[in-house]
């Protein structure tokens, strides 16, 4: 015992150093996240390799189920194609249209403020003129329309939602391309008004209204909504109807801004001709 004590006394410098160095390293690895995680990642890479191996094996047992899911998904996607190519006799038009559509640029943006409960609703997006957004360009979500940009700052843009007094969307029936106007009268944010439906159109509840592409704001063929009810007015020139919006304006997260790259050319063409000259 005495010898042990002497031994410690003789070499206390080494032990003291080892003790203090250990303390400092423990402190170091406990208080510094990077080194801590680096230390963990060494041990994790071992356990991770094992887990990887076993999950790879277990994937084989799930292949039957995975196949079924994939086939269902494929069938679902196939069933959509004929819908997309609805008008077979307008095939040339469709092709031409798709070429034009390449001229649309899409910019994704996040909605940072939104409302649906006012008479005139606006949204704010987190992208602006620095990202190439200009006034009077369309905003869509998926293949459904949201509104149009009415004001831009360098980093943000102010979007007039379809739920607005001043919003008049040019739409058409998907089944026969008859033009109509879509507006919103306030109230329920899921329902809007379809105006100027020509008398001769036979419509049924559930008819789909899409964008006409006449306004240069939205490309042709975006979903606006479906007819939910209509009224035949015998003594007026047009019928009116009610539309169920395809867009859920109350749950907008990320949207896309559509920019027509040929807008300028179209405008110039329009202004180049003045009647009576």
């Amino acid at each position, binding site marked *: 015992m005495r010898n042990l004590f002497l031994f410690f006394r003789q070499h*206390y410098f080494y032990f003291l150093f080892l003790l203090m160095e250990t303390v*400092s*390293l423990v402190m170091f690895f406990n208080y510094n996240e990077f080194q801590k995680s680096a230390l963990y990642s060494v041990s994790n890479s071992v356990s991770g390799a094992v887990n990887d191996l076993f999950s790879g094996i277990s994937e084989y047992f799930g292949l039957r189920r995975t196949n079924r899911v994939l086939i269902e998904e494929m069938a679902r996607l196939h069933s959509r194609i004929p819908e997309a190519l609805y008008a077979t006799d307008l095939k040339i038009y469709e092709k031409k249209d798709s070429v034009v559509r390449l001229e649309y640029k899409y910019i994704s943006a996040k909605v940072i403020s939104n409302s649906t409960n006012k008479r005139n609703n606006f949204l704010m997006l987190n992208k602006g003129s620095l990202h190439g957004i200009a006034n009077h360009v369309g905003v869509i979500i998926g293949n459904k329309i949201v509104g149009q940009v009415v004001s831009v700052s360098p980093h943000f843009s102010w979007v007039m939602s379809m739920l607005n007094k001043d919003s008049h969307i040019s739409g058409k029936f998907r089944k026969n391309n008859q033009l109509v106007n879509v507006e919103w009268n306030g109230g329920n944010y899921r329902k809007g008004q379809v105006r100027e439906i020509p008398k001769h159109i036979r419509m049924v509840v559930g008819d789909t209204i899409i964008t006409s592409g006449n306004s240069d704001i939205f490309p042709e063929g975006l979903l606006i909504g479906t007819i939910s009810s209509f009224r035949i007015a015998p003594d007026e020139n047009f019928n009116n109807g009610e539309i169920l919006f395809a867009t859920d304006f109350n749950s907008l997260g990320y949207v896309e801004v559509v920019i027509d790259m040929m807008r300028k050319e179209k405008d110039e063409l329009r202004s180049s001709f003045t009647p009576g000259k």
Partner: protein
Amino acid sequence: MTSRTLLYNILRFFFLVFFQVLILNHVNLGGFINPYFYVYFILLLPFSTPRWMLLLAAFVLGWSIDIFTNTLGLNISACLLMAFARPFVMMAISSGPESLLGDTPSIRNQGVKWFLYYSVILIFIHHFSLFYLEIFRFEEFFFTLVRVLLSSAFTLLLVLLSEYLFYSRGNK
């Protein structure tokens, strides 16, 4: 150790810590050279300092730096290693009793050659452990080594500069 030496060392401690955290920690020559001049304190501890005191002083010194740089433990371990190595380095480079003349290690007492060996080895030990602990990966091994060498050289330059500025007056 006289009370005057103690006072000098305490003052030097505070001066070096503040000089380090207020000025040198913001120096980033060429993007990757950081001088750690505060180790000068350990270099200049008197010969008569007990070994446990060496370690304790190194611990407190490293801790003070760590508090300011938010890297608790990093400077402590590097300083401890350096303080631990100090007696052995001294033994290794001293040829006779005249090597340990005077109160503290200095160019005036031990000569340029002795002091250079002494500080180069200890500064390198400190910087080496500090940089590798901080980076903690071997992917950039040689780049880190270059950083260690250049930073050590810069620290050494500062040490020699202050040796000639403050501690060679006695010659005149």
